[in-house]
C-alpha cells in the first residue's frame, strides 16, 4: 500500500470571496500506519479526507493510492463517516453485505465474508437487528465492519467517534486499535480531540487554520496499549495543544 498526497490545495468561492481551505498539503502515508489528522474546527481536515476519498475534487494537487491517481470514490479507500451512514432499511448483516454485493461475489462467499467482519467487531448476535435498534457505538462498529469488508487498502475515518459519549469512545478506540492490528490496514483518522490522536496515532498531522496547512507532524512512539495518562502522552499532548493554541 502507498498513499501519497502531493501539493493539495482547495479553494472555494463564496459570495464572490475566494476562500483557501487547504493549501499545499503534501504527505506520504506509510504502509500499515495509523495516522491522525488533527486540527481545530474549520481547518479543512474533513475536506482533506473527502478529497482523498474522491468525494471532492481538489483545486490543484494529486492523491495517489498504490501509484494510481484517485479521480473518484474507489473501494481501495473506504470511508467511515461521523454518523448516520448505515442504511436503515437494511439489517446489520445486510449493511455489511452492501459493498460485497456491489463487487458481485458469489452469494455464499459474500455471506462468509460479512459474517467474518461482523464477528471482528463483536456483533455476531446482532446480525438481524436494524440500525435503529443499536446504540451509537454499535452502529459505528457496523460502519467499520462494512468498510473493512470490501478489503480496502486504506480506511478513511472522519471523526467516527465524535458523536459518542466519552466512555463509549474510549472503548471503541481500543477496539479500533485491535482491529487495526489484526487487519494491518492503513488508517487515516480525522479528529479534533488531542487525547484521541495521542492515544491512537503513530503520527499526528497537526493542521493550522485559514488556510489549512500542515503545521507540524509529530511522531508518537509510546508502546501500545497506551496508558492515557503516561508521561510521554502528556508531553505530546502539551506540545500539540501549544501548537493549536498559537493559532488563536
Amino acid at each position: 500500500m502507498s498513499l501519497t498526497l502531493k501539493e493539495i490545495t482547495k479553494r472555494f468561492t463564496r459570495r464572490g470571496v475566494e476562500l483557501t481551505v487547504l493549501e499545499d498539503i503534501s504527505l506520504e502515508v506509510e504502509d500499515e500506519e495509523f495516522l491522525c489528522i488533527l486540527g481545530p474546527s474549520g481547518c479543512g481536515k474533513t475536506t482533506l479526507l473527502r478529497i482523498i476519498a474522491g468525494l471532492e475534487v481538489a483545486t490543484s494537487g494529486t492523491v495517489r493510492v498504490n501509484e494510481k491517481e484517485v479521480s473518484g470514490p474507489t473501494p481501495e479507500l473506504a470511508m467511515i463517516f461521523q454518523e448516520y451512514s448505515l442504511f436503515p432499511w437494511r439489517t446489520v448483516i445486510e449493511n455489511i453485505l452492501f459493498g460485497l454485493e456491489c463487487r458481485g461475489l458469489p452469494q455464499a462467499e459474500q455471506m462468509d465474508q460479512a459474517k467474518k467482519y461482523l464477528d471482528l467487531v463483536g456483533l455476531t448476535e446482532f446480525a438481524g437487528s436494524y440500525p435503529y435498534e443499536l446504540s451509537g457505538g454499535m452502529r459505528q462498529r457496523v460502519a467499520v465492519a462494512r468498510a473493512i469488508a470490501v478489503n480496502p487498502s486504506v480506511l478513511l475515518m472522519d471523526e467516527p467517534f465524535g458523536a459518542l459519549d466519552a466512555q463509549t469512545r474510549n472503548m471503541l478506540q481500543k477496539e479500533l486499535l485491535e482491529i487495526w492490528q489484526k487487519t494491518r490496514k492503513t488508517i487515516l483518522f480525522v479528529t479534533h480531540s488531542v487525547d484521541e490522536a495521542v492515544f491512537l496515532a503513530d503520527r499526528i498531522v497537526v493542521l493550522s487554520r485559514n488556510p489549512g496547512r500542515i503545521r507540524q507532524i509529530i511522531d508518537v512512539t509510546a508502546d501500545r496499549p497506551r496508558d492515557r495518562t503516561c508521561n510521554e502522552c502528556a508531553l505530546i499532548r502539551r506540545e500539540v495543544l501549544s501548537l493549536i493554541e498559537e493559532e488563536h
Partner: protein
Amino acid sequence: MVIPPAEHEREEARPQKASPLLRLALPVLLLVIWEIAAILLDNEFILPRIGSVLSILLHPAADILGSGSLISNGLISLERVLIGFFIATLIAIPLGIGMGRNDMVHTLFDPVIQMFRPIPPLAWVPLSLAWFKIGLSSMVFIIALGGFFPILLNTIDGVRSVRKTWIEAATTLGASEKGILMRVVLPGAAPTIWTGLRVGFGICWMCVVAAEMMPGTNSGIGYLIMTSYNWGQVQVIIAGMIVIGIIGLGVDSLFKFVEKRRFSWRELDR
C-alpha cells in the same frame, strides 16, 4: 420515593387513554339519528330506513334493477381503478426519480406540472370525452390523472430526502450509478413513494366513481348509484355509497399494513 416535579408534571399532562368503545359512540349515534329521522320523515324516496339499506348490503351478489350486483359492479370499478392507477404509477415514479435526482429534469418539467396540478381531474371529463369518447379509455384517463400528481410529488420528495451520506457511503463501497439508484435511492425513498401510492389510490378511487356517473356508462358502482337515482331507489344509492367506502377503506388499510411492516424504519431511524 419522591417523584421529581418535572417527571410528576409530565405524568399529569399525559392525555387519558381513551376507551376503544369511544370509537363506536359517534357511529352508533349517527345510526340512531338516521333511523329516527327516517321514521319521522316516512318517505323512502328521501331517506330509507336502515333495514332496507341493510337488506341490500346483505345480498351483495343479487342483481339490482337489471344492472348487476353490488359485487360485480364493485369489481368492475376496482378493475378500472387498477388500470388507471397502474398507468399513473408507471409514469409518475420514473419521472419523479428523474426530477428528484436531476435538477435539469426538474427545471424542465416543473412549470408544466405546477400548471396542471391545480386542475381537478373531473374538470378533464369533457375533454376526455371529446378525445376518447365514452368508454374505458376516457375513464382510465381521468383516473390516471387523479393518481398521477400525488405519486409524482411524493416520489420527488422521497428521492430528495435520501441522505447524502447514504449515497456517499455507497459510492465509497463501490456502488455504480445503477447500484446507487437500485440499492440506495429507491429503498431510501420507498416509504415516501408508498405514501404517494396510498394517497394516489384514494384519489383514483374517488375519480372512478365520478367517471362512472358520466352519461353513457353502463357498469360500475358509480353507474349503479346513478341508475338507482333515476329509479328512485335511495336505499341502493346509500348501499352503493357504503360499498365505495368499504372498498376504499379496505385498500387503504392494506397500504397501511404494508407500510407498518416494511417501512417502519423511517419513523424509528432518527
